[in-house]
């Protein structure tokens, strides 16, 4: 079994690790549920109706393959965040089926049918009374990761985003960009299979946002998790992802899918290329059509 997750890895030798190592090979593993093990998330006609009734989502279908980075763009209020919460298991769909495949040990060592998920919110959502390192420690505590493992994991996490000297600082002392970096590595410290990002960089200034986009890509290339990235910024979506899904206004559904052909690692200056601009324009146009 090839060990692709080199940076934050302690469960590679687990016999349950399964399909992860051949996520690039294109080979189809059929799991007991009959779904390709390659698909980490499969949504089929997922709908969500809140009591009222308000139809938040109408028949959303898409698949996320293992190791893939997909962005979802859509006008505000279209249910993007709701979709992300469904995937995270924070909400349950009222129709359709949503499956997260693979029996993957979570950071706690317990295996379950739900892959370990990391979530990054719109705000950094750091506990104000905990220092940076204690905020990163929180998921480890909640998942009962043995204490002796914490220090090394937190150190690695802080080094990944260059915040080593801020280990003891409190969130109120950090800039918005730094707080978001902490939130990012907090979500990654449990070594999740799937990272869900809910417009994480929306409140940041443009330069900080671009930096964090580059940092995020670097982390993704090093650690090979899968990610669903929600944003309303088309340029961000194009820069980051392999595929961009476009959602319509409420009731939300996916109206278009764009493949982004740029090779990784992506240099920051591809943002200035003609292909990049054309793709971004196409997606923007599609978004605008969907919104009317």
């Amino acid at each position, binding site marked *: 079994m090839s060990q692709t997750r080199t940076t934050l890895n302690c469960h590679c030798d687990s016999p349950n690790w399964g399909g992860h190592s051949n996520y690039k090979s294109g080979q189809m593993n059929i799991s007991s549920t009959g779904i390709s093990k390659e698909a980490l998330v499969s949504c089929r006609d997922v709908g969500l109706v809140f009591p009222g009734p308000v139809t938040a989502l109408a028949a959303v279908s898409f698949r996320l393959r293992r190791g893939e980075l997909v962005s979802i763009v859509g006008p505000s209020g279209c249910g993007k965040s709701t979709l992300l919460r469904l995937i995270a298991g924070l909400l349950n769909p009222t129709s359709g089926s949503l499956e997260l495949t693979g029996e993957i040990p979570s950071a706690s060592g317990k295996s379950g049918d739900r892959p370990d998920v990391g979530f990054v919110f719109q705000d950094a959502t750091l506990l104000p009374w905990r220092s940076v390192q204690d905020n990163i420690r929180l998921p480890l505590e*909640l998942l009962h990761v043995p204490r002796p493992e914490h220090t090394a994991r937190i150190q690695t996490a802080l080094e990944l985003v260059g915040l080593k000297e801020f*280990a003891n600082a409190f969130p109120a002392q950090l800039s918005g960009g730094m707080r978001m970096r902490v939130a990012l590595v907090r979500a990654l410290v449990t070594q999740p299979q799937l990272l869900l990002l809910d417009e994480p960089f929306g409140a940041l200034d443009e330069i900080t946002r671009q930096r964090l986009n580059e940092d995020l890509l670097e982390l993704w290339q090093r650690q090979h998790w899968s990610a669903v990235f929600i944003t309303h910024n088309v340029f961000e979506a194009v820069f980051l992802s392999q595929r961009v899904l476009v959602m319509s206004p409420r009731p939300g559904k996916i109206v278009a899918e764009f493949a982004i052909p740029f090779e990784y690692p992506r240099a920051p200056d591809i943002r200035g290329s003609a292909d990049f601009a054309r793709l971004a324009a196409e997606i923007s146009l599609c978004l605008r059509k969907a919104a009317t």
Partner: protein
Amino acid sequence: MKQIGVKGIFFRAWDWLAPPAILFCMVILCWHAVTVAFKVPKYLVPSPLSVAQTMYERGGDLSHALRLTGTAALLGFLCSLIVGFVVALAFSQSALIRRSCYPYAIFLQTVPIVAIAPLIITWFGYGFHSVVIVSFMISLFPIITNTSTGLITVDARFLELFAIYHSSRWQVLWKLRVPNCVPFLIAGAKTSSGLSVIGAIVGEFFVGVSSDWRGLGHYISDASGNMNTTLLFAAVLNCTLLGLSVFVLVNVLGYVVLRRWNNPGRGT
């Protein structure tokens, strides 16, 4: 640079202390002037000088009374902190408990303590226990309401964050709700600290003159019965000092604890 820092602190303290101190002196001067100029009888308004004299002469009695009242008030306050916190914990864990008990917590707040103080004394005797219980009862409610608010009003995103990691109720309580309620608890404690002193004095009124328990309340009711207005003023002044010191104590403690929550200094 350090010297400037120290000087800075000194000037800041001066900025805070000077205005009330000057006002205090002016009021005392006016008070004295009025009592002298209009020859106000001692039993109506004693001059500040005679109050100071009484405070000196009866210093032993009054400082003993201050100690007694202070002990009872602090004990009542501590009990209200502990009981209030535990009740709030119960409220935060079950909407059913909250709904069924909250009206009675309000009852505790709205029933005039003066009305039930005699009952408490009938039950718990003429002395220490009754004084502490009255003080405890009067300072309990702000702790319960503030702490429950802090335990219940937790940012929904924090709850989602904990849910992502399949946290137990216990983890949510101790790692999220309890730390979240600390600033609320301290705000409640500030209100309660003053109330606990009031409660102790009200309790002492009812405990009565015959009791061994001669706190400040005893001197107030005794002095007022004998038209000894000077002693009354001296006792009231002691009460104020007691209330003030409890309040300052809670504020300083609150400031130290809350540094982590508000605007913390750079970590160690």
